[in-house]
């Protein structure tokens, strides 16, 4: 099987990339796997800042973290649901996945587990400094994945 994977950054809805992934899966007659990897480090950082700089108790920090996580999760679930319905309408079987952790690591695992032949990676726009310092998954994945990786710019 040479399934198609589309990896979408949280909080984005890249129309062209989603359509391209559905078209590719339809053309090949394979399954589409749609993946969003949540990076919850931001929520933890905010909670730490509230505790260490704002001197708030753990109850307040935990509450804010919970709200941020819930917001990210429900937003991503809604997008995956829309992708699923759209793919099914076009006759493509689909698996939607919402994962947490490092994007590169999760993508590598999913590529192996779901027999992915082509991965469409939607890249976020970052400043040159962020790109230089963090080497995003978009840079790391082609080197690590055992499949074809296509990068698509965020619209």
């Amino acid at each position, binding site marked *: 099987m040479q399934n198609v994977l589309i990896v979408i950054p949280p909080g984005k809805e890249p129309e062209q990339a989603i359509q391209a992934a559905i078209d590719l899966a339809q053309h090949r007659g394979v399954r589409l796997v749609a993946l969003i990897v949540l990076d919850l480090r931001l929520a933890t950082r905010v909670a730490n800042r509230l505790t260490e700089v704002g*001197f708030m108790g753990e109850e307040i920090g935990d509450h804010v973290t919970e709200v941020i996580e819930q917001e990210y999760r429900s937003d991503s679930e809604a997008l995956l649901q829309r992708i699923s319905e759209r793919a099914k309408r076009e006759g493509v079987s689909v698996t939607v996945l919402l994962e947490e952790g490092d994007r590169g690591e999760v993508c590598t695992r999913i590529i192996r587990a779901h027999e992915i032949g082509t991965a469409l990676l939607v890249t976020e726009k970052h400043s040159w400094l962020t790109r230089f310092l963090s080497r995003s998954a978009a840079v790391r994945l082609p*080197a690590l994945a055992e499949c074809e990786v296509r990068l698509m710019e965020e619209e």
Partner: protein
Amino acid sequence: MPKREVVVVVDTRPLWLILLSRGRGTLLVAVGGLLYWLTVSLPLPQGLTPQGQKALAVFVLCIFFWVFSVLPLMITSLLAIILLPLTGVMQSSQAYALFGNEAVFFILGAFILAACLMKSGLSTRIALSLLHRFGRTPRRLLLTIYLLNAVMAFFMSEHAVAAMNFPIVVEIVAVLALQRRRSNYARALFLAMAWGTSIGGIATLLGGARAPLALGILREATGTSYTFLEWTLLALPLVLILLVTGYQIILWFFPIEIETVRAADTALSERWLKLGRLSYEEWVIGLVMCATLVAWLLGGEEFGLANIALAAVVILFVLRVVSWRDVERYVNWGVLLMYGGAIALGAAMNKSGAAEWLSHATISNWASNGVEVVLMTSLVSLLLTEAMSHSAVVALLMPVAIGVAHEFGLDPRVMAPVVALPAGLAFTLPIGTPANAIAYSSGYLRIRDLLLPGALLELCAWLAFNAMAIWYWPLLGVHIR
């Protein structure tokens, strides 16, 4: 037994970058140590005593650790308390006694009272009641959120206000189905929440611990201070100017694109109705809070701000409306360590003469009169607070500012608001203050949504602050020339 798949991810960054990112903490500790050693071992500069040099070295080390967050703020304060006696700058008994400063206990009392307000749900009830009553149109809802956050930050820590109202704003944005990073209205709402709390937070001594800390350092150095009312009168016009300017900037950069907020109004009404009747705890906490405010305003000088705050806390426990367990979960006890250490460090700098020497070597070289000192100090405070904790800015600048005041023959009391008020005004970066960080974490704001509007408000704040210091403060008996 089935084999478990192990995913190996190769870090493809350059080796020097990997080493730098992993060894950052150790490297910064080493740099701090080096700075300390350099300051202590350099030939004694003219005008600085050996004791002052050691105090300066501890000061440099702690400021470096505070700026680069090498250690949590409170742990750096503990380090200061250890180093001051060890280096012979002051005796252990003196250093530890400074933890008992009135300002520290005032801050603690204010935090506990705010915790009670939050725990009882009274603060959320007030927020929902106002939003439900006034937020009927997009513009009015935005303005209500902005003013609500500002006014609540008059009475409790601005960080607590932002944390408390954040879920409400998230819910409003969700029910209005506003698009992430695209909707102007969503961006305006989160910005209004963050800016409202920051602006309101400088109005009284309750909005943040900066002002009590500045007053604590001032009292240790000079024996003088401000009353609750005096401070509020000094700050209030700036707050009003910034509230108007900030709101106009938000509307200018993010014009409202939606016609109605009916869905949000319905959701807020439902949440408000679910709260039910005012509970006994809410009644008692509300009354005690009002009485405390009146006591601070009318009897702060006579009875002491900290005594009034702690008395209010005791009354709440006597009436059994709050438990110790609740207080522990809502208040971070590091607050005692942070502010105690910062006050001890400030006292060491002033008593050893290091603060005066440092002010002579820095600001006094560039300024020639009181007005220039105020312009410069407020600018430095405003810029530093964008990158480091508000309290660290006060801990850094207050001892130097008091030294500058002595040199220019200014009343040292002037320097407390000159340092502490701008230190609360961080509008441009998510790291500037927890309120900005919370707003940014919503995912609806990009950094550039904060940068340009924030920089503009920052400039307005600096101009308005100095205009107020030059023309308004003299009316209250605070002269800068």
